[in-house]
């Protein structure tokens, strides 16, 4: 034995996770019994009272006493949640009020009858779904269950009692229970209680009561309940041993492979496999092998197989679809890859002789594989399954109606040709008709066409003509062959057509899906992504689609798509909200809140639910088939992926800009403290020198000191003004008062203001005389001009002129200031406008690096733009563009002749 004596790391991790989950999760206890009347509810209430005495907050959600006095007495002293009244088909159904229970939030809730099916209009279809929600909300739940309602035992119970059970609870719900307490009563005692009238039997079973409450049945059910509980206890024991690391010959973990192929026996096979897996405590895998031969299978069969796989998944199996040429090859390969110890098959229902010829699958597997092969007896299901099969499209009567004209046409053609051709060749024409009917209308009409064709052929062409009698018995062979061939051809053609249709639809969906994922990748903004997703999903599903995202308060609202989907008011949105909060699909076609008009699917991100995709399927598609379900899931997944990418990018961007702001803040502090202190130090130094002058400094030195005080004070003033301006710009407190202004005047004012700084620095101004007035705020723009001039003065060659130019073209005004200096370093073209940025040439020069960013701020406040570039021949050029909206107002001119200014 090479199997390790200790749990593998994977097993260990899985156990640790399960344990953690269990601790966090609310406790779930099932009082389990063989059948009604054993005293489950009673036992539950007794324990509830004990818990209450121990100080637990116990509330009764719903308990059915069935008029039993001793049970009713136990309800005294327990708080109960009033039932909700649900209007249903003219009457009122009183149901458990889930919302009231969630709002009350007790520590422990009692909720009878786990297998109960809720009245339509309730949130969930099944009570066990209610309980899942309660547990998820952290509320402990006690409930009761009879063995006959366990999903995997339905067949067994039916075999025992002969009564089909409709209400069932998935085994996974049982597995999830923290505790299952068996409430046992020997059959004789139960029968005794029944005779005394102490046991009320629920309506559904009442009619079959005589059959159901037979001693034999009761013994069998009791045994089933005991065995189920024993299995569970056994499993617990094993888990305990594993957890505590108690050494014991470690049994190989069994792995069972179940192959479903025949839709007719699939469900039964899955249930049997589940029981087997439970008994062996084995992992089980349910697979279906698709072979080319199955391409001939009807679409509904394929949907049905998918449904069976889903069903197996719900029962706890791993599921998979394999594709290959031969079923046995695929199964053996899979079995050996996954270390399967047993393969379970359904009994073949094919004809014996065929099996003789081809050999059965089971024999093949036994001969070539190493795993044990179990064959489960196949028995045609009376009701096809507990699960609703995918709907088969209703036959179109138009299609059947089409059979008649086709046969008539064939007959006419045959009549026209009857003189030249042999009778057996005329029969061929009818085969053409069958192919046409099969292609156009499907299988049923094709078969009808074959029958009608044979009848018409007989009536019109086979002698004696115009009677149904046949003179020569050899024609009977012709009829038979003709009919057989027609049916086979018709069936094949119809299937081909069906598959073609399905393939086309698949292709269309796949293409649209591909396009969607490409488009989603290409889009950057959340709005675009949602827009694309909504459009494509609507196209693929031919449905109304909306995407809802949460706001800051976790309340979701429509962000894209068909808002009319929620025209139904608050109710529909509430369903979507439920989906968002629970991360499970709800609404139409699901087990939860199925009264909704739309289907709501969660957009599940990697760590949380991002939003909800709401789909309102129209018409025939309203009933979901397996393909559609998968498609919707894929679509939701794609959308979630894109949304998550975008949300992550947004938060990364936010983090980045926050970091940027932080850097700017520290740069500001650094710059401000440095730039404020330097002039202050100079002023203080100069002023104290003057003040403490004992020896009598020469007049020239005193003057220099005073000048440096003035100079440094000016610098300080300038810096503070810039900081204030920047603050005004950034806080948005800046109001732009545009007036039709003269650029020449503003340049003049700026140059006048800079007189003391510029001295006789050459400046060349080129402003055309006919430059119109420009709409701008002259106070602010004078600052732009002044900052640009100062900048040019600072960096340009002082012996060469600063060049200022202005022009207007159409509706744009251009203003430029250029110098002949070192120009800008590569990459500085945009960076020079950043706050506190000083280019390589700027280090060591006065200024805080604010002038140009103030320029940009002011220009942008004018809806304009500013650029920096290097000029040919050296130096930098700064260009401002401002929009000119409207035309400058007219100034009526004076009569030129009346010049009084002339001397007189």
């Amino acid at each position, binding site marked *: 034995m090479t199997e390790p004596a200790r749990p593998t790391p994977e097993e260990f991790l899985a156990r640790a996770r399960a344990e953690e989950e269990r601790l966090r999760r609310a406790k779930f206890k099932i009082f389990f019994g063989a059948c009604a009347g054993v005293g489950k509810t009673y036992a539950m209430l007794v324990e509830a009272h004990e818990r209450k005495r121990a100080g637990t907050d116990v509330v009764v959600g719903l308990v059915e006493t069935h008029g039993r006095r001793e049970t009713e007495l136990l309800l005294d002293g327990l708080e109960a949640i009033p039932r909700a009244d649900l209007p249903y088909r003219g009457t009122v159904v009183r149901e458990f009020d889930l919302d009231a229970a969630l709002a009350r939030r007790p520590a422990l809730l009692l909720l009878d009858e786990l297998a109960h099916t809720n009245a339509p209009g309730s949130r969930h279809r099944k009570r066990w779904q209610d309980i899942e929600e309660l547990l998820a909300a952290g509320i402990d739940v006690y409930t009761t269950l009879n063995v006959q309602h366990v999903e995997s035992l339905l067949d067994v119970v039916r075999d025992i009692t002969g009564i089909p059970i409709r209400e069932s609870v998935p085994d996974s719900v049982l597995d999830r229970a923290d505790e299952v307490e068996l409430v046992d009563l020997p059959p004789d005692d139960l029968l005794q209680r029944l005779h005394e009238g102490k046991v009320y039997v629920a309506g559904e079973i009442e009619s079959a009561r005589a059959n159901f409450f037979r001693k034999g049945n009761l013994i069998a059910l009791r045994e089933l309940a005991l065995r189920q509980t024993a299995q569970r206890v056994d499993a617990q024991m094993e888990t305990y041993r594993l957890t505590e690391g108690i050494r014991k010959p470690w049994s190989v973990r069994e792995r069972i492979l179940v192959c479903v192929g025949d839709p007719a026996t699939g469900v039964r096979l899955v249930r049997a496999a589940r029981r087997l897996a439970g008994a062996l405590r084995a992992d089980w895998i349910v697979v279906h092998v698709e072979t080319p031969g199955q391409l001939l299978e009807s679409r509904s069969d394929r949907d049905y197989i998918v449904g069976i796989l889903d069903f197996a998944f719900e029962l706890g199996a791993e599921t998979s679809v394999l594709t290959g040429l031969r079923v046995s090859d695929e199964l053996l390969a899979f079995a050996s890859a996954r270390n399967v110890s047993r393969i379970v098959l359904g009994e073949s229902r094919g004809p014996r002789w065929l099996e003789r010829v081809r050999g059965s699958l089971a024999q093949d597997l036994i001969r070539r594989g190493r795993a044990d092969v179990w064959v489960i007896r196949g028995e045609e299901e009376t009701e096809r399954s507990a699960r609703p099969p995918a709907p088969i499209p209703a036959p179109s009567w138009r299609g059947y109606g089409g059979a008649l004209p086709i046969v008539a046409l064939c007959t006419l053609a045959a009549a026209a040709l009857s003189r030249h051709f042999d009778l057996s060749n005329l029969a061929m024409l009818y085969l053409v008709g069958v192919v046409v009917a099969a292609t156009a209308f499907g299988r049923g009409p094709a078969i009808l066409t074959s029958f009608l064709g044979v009848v018409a052929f007989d009536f019109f062409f086979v002698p004696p003509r115009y009677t149904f009698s046949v003179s020569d018995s050899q024609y009977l062979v012709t009829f038979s062959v003709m009919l057989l061939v027609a049916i086979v051809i018709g069936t094949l053609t119809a299937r081909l057509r069906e598959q073609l249709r399905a393939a086309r639809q698949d292709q269309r969906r796949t293409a649209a899906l591909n396009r969607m994922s490409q488009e989603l990748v290409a889009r950057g903004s959340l709005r675009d992504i949602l827009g694309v997703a909504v459009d494509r999903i609507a196209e693929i599903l031919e449905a109304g689609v909306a995407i809802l995202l949460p706001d800051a308060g976790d309340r979701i609202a429509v962000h894209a798509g068909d808002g009319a989907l929620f025209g139904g008011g608050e109710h529909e949105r509430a369903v979507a909200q439920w989906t968002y909060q629970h991360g499970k699909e709800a609404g139409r076609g699901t087990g939860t809140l199925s009264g909704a008009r739309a289907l709501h699917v969660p957009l599940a991100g990697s760590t949380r639910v991002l939003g909800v995709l709401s789909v309102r399927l129209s018409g025939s598609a309203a009933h979901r088939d397996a393909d559609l379900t998968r498609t919707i899931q894929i679509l939701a997944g794609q959308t979630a992926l894109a949304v998550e990418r975008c949300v992550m990018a947004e938060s990364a961007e936010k983090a980045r800009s926050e970091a940027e702001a932080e850097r700017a803040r520290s740069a500001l502090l650094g710059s401000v403290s440095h730039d404020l202190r330097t002039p202050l130090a100079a002023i203080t130094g100069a002023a104290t020198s003057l003040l403490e002058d004992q020896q009598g400094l020469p007049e020239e030195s005193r003057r220099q000191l005073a000048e440096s005080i*003035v100079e440094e*004070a*000016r610098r300080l*003033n300038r810096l503070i*003004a810039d900081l*204030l*301006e920047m603050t005004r710009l950034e806080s948005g407190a800046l109001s732009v008062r545009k*007036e*039709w*202004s*003269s650029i*020449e*005047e*503003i*340049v*003049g*004012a700026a*140059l*006048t203001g800079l007189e003391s700084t510029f001295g006789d620095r050459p*400046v060349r*101004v080129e*402003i055309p*005389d006919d430059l119109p*007035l420009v709409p701008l705020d*002259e*106070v602010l723009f*004078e600052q732009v001009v002044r900052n640009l001039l100062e900048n040019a003065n600072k960096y340009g060659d002082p012996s060469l002129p600063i060049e*200022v130019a202005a022009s207007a073209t159409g509706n744009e005004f251009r203003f430029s200031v250029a110098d002949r200096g070192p120009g800008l370093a590569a990459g500085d073209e945009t960076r020079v406008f950043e706050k506190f940025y000083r280019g390589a040439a700027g280090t060591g020069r006065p200024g805080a690096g604010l002038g140009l960013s103030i320029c940009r701020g002011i220009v942008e406040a004018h809806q304009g733009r500013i650029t920096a570039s290097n000029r040919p021949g050296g130096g930098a050029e700064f260009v401002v563009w401002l929009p000119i909206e409207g035309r*400058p*107002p007219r*100034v009526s001119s*004076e009569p*030129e002749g*009346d*010049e*009084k*200014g*002339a*001397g*007189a």
Partner: protein
Amino acid sequence: MTSASPGPEPLVLVVEDDPPIRKFLRAGLESHGYRYVEATTGGDGIAQASMRSPDLVLLDLGLPDVDGIEVVRRIREWSTLPIVVLSARGRERDKIEALDAGADDYVTKPFSMGELLARMRVALRHRARLRTGEEVTAFESGDLSIDLARRRVTARGKEVRLTPIEFKLLATLARFAGRVLTHDVLLREVWGPGYATQRHYLRVYMAQLRHKIEADPARPKHLVTEPGVGYRLRDD
């Protein structure tokens, strides 16, 4: 440097709440031959203005008790004594309001002593003229001379031909030479009360004047623009 105003040393009332500024103003003014009194609040300033009858008021606009503009208005109710306003940069609206309320001129903080003294001289000169009823008949500064009576303008040694409105505009500036005149005042004086909002007229005609008078219209020596406030004809 001697004061341009006649009689004994003029008395200057400084209304300012900031001690360092009062200190340097006192030193600067007294060393330039002015007598100095001070008030630290607007209310005190109004009282001192009536009691001490100063020759000029230097008024800070940012006072702790009353708005400086209100102080201008209150003094103007009974007196025409010259008021020069001290204001911070970037508060063009305050300046216009103060001028509209009757202030003679303004100086933007921080200012140099020379700049302040020049403004004060202009204000005192205008007030003196007002008192004596003397008309301004001529203006002369650098290469520009204006004979208001004869309507003759010479610039750069040549006679300049002006349209009637151009002349009226230049004459108005010349009459108040050295003082800033707001857009509104100029529009009212030259075009009439109905033109107060038509600033583009002013801009177009000022441009024409600059082109006729200035050697380099983009770097004017005489016709100075005060962005957001108005224009000034330099007179030094």
